[in-house]
């Protein structure tokens, strides 16, 4: 049986399919409950109760929402470019799922443990902007178009400093493999020696996922709902799911790069690998929601200033500093 799964072409395909299913089903359930968690956390911040009617403690609310979305009619505006209009939400959702292929949830538990895992993640996350641009253009609506333009400028800007942060981390690791990145944090998690980079990376992930306080692509008070203003029903739901899956993905990236992935704090309980990983992701996600509940939205020029005039010099400087320190003290890996 093991021979069939590992050594025949059909077996490998079936095995990969099952692995993908085992990862994506919990992920989608996680996405569903993240939407509930967001409403509950925001409600707690604003001293309300939040959804509490559907099921015990409102636990079935996400499924009620999903059913509602499924039952509604998908409306395609008459001036829209039909193919691209429908392609955009699928693209967004697909990319959010695709990136999970290389995420190691435990030692050796990655579907594809490839050598260039960091670059793969970076590539996939930089593609996310296409879903938004295409949606904005294909909708043939000025609000959607404005949202798309804002989002394109924003995501490209923050990617640059994110790239430098990634380079800093992989200087300390000496490998582009995500499993190696986590293993290199056995002694100390990178969030301690690279603390400023950790902060820069976290804020950049907020901008990359278009979350508050950088949610100007949606900016409901200025441009209605931005790029997805023309979307309804399942097409809208795909955008929605994609955004939340991206949040989980970015939290996973933060966890792997800075918070030691599946490693327990101080090396305790290494048996709980997956649980530690999930717990750290939940912590990051809580910060996402907390920030949404407390921060006002950035103005567009402030956002650009932060990206190009603050984060870019800071991350570049820290990169040079890290390289210098590693060289001076002989800490460079793989030498």
């Amino acid at each position, binding site marked *: 049986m093991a021979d069939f799964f590992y050594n025949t072409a059909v077996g490998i395909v079936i095995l990969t399919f099952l692995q993908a299913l085992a990862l994506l089903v919990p992920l989608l359930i996680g996405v569903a409950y993240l939407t509930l968690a967001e409403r509950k956390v925001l409600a707690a911040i604003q001293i309300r109760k939040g959804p509490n009617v559907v099921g015990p403690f409102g636990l079935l609310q996400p499924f009620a929402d999903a059913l509602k979305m499924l039952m509604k009619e998908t409306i395609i505006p008459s001036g829209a470019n039909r193919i691209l209009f429908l392609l955009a939400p699928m693209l967004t959702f697909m990319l959010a799922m695709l990136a999970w292929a290389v995420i190691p949830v435990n030692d050796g538990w990655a579907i594809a443990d490839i050598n*260039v895992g960091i670059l793969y993640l970076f590539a996939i996350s930089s593609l996310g902007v296409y879903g938004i641009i295409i949606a904005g253009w294909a909708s043939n609506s000025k609000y959607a178009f404005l949202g798309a333009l804002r989002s394109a400028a924003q995501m490209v800007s923050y990617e640059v400093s994110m790239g430098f942060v990634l380079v800093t981390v992989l200087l300390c690791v000496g490998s582009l493999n995500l499993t190696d990145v986590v293993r290199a944090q056995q002694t100390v998690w990178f969030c301690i020696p690279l603390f400023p980079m950790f902060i820069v990376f976290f804020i950049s992930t907020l901008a990359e996922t278009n979350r508050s306080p950088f949610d100007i692509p949606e900016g409901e008070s200025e441009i209605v709902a931005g790029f997805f203003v023309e979307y309804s029903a399942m097409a809208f739901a795909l955008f929605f799911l994609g955004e939340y899956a991206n949040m989980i993905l970015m939290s996973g990236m933060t966890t792997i790069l800075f918070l030691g992935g599946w490693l327990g704090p101080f090396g305790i309980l290494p048996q709980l690998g997956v649980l530690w990983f999930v717990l750290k992701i939940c912590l990051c996600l809580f910060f996402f929601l907390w920030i949404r509940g407390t921060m006002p939205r950035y103005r567009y020029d402030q956002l650009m200033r932060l990206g190009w005039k603050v984060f870019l010099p800071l991350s570049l400087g820290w990169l040079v500093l890290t390289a210098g320190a590693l060289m001076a003290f002989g800490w460079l890996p793989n030498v």
Partner: protein
Amino acid sequence: MITLTLFYLFSAVLVVSAAMVVSSRNPVHAVLFLILAFFNASALFLVAGAEFLAMILVIVYVGAVAVLFLFVVMMLDVDFDELRSGFQRYLPIGAAVGAVLFVELLIVFGGWKLAPDAVRFHASPTPAGVSNTEAIGMLMYTDYILLFQLAGLVLLVAMVGAIVLTLRDRKTSRHQDISVQTSRRVDETLAMVSVPLGASVTESGGFLRPIVEEPEELVGHDDHGGHGHGHDNHGHH
């Protein structure tokens, strides 16, 4: 077998999408086909075992260059009839340039000689025991460091040139100056006034307004309305 199938699949899609780039009417569709072509080229790199190049191709071309392309093309207001009207007039020039380029290519490929050892290196992307990324790193940063630095210098010059061409203080917009905002002191913004009981505002000295410097006139901005930041200090006595 699988590799070969994948190679032909990606190559076929690559060629078709490249043809669609030049033949599609809608410029946005053309850019999207260009992105598809980039993707398939990257997949071909993967088939050849050059994983680092594949990822870099996606990050640089698809993730950055093509976004800017799309950005510009989406905002173009192209009139297709006007575009096609000049076709016959420019046909001879275009054909001549194309022919010259084609002949040049023929000359180059006619005189092309493969080094005798080069055949051995076909589709052997890395030396044994070294990963793809490390092999490229060794080549670029150790063996060809001078060329690499020179290329960086050329890019730097191009970047400086682009900034010099576009960065002008055109005085058409006002910017937020964070240092001015944060260096403001309390005694510049707040004043304690002792107001007699029952006195009106005008009796007790009039409205106090912040002292704001009159901003420079905006060039090419003829407004008749009294809006703007400098308006408040008209009431200052």
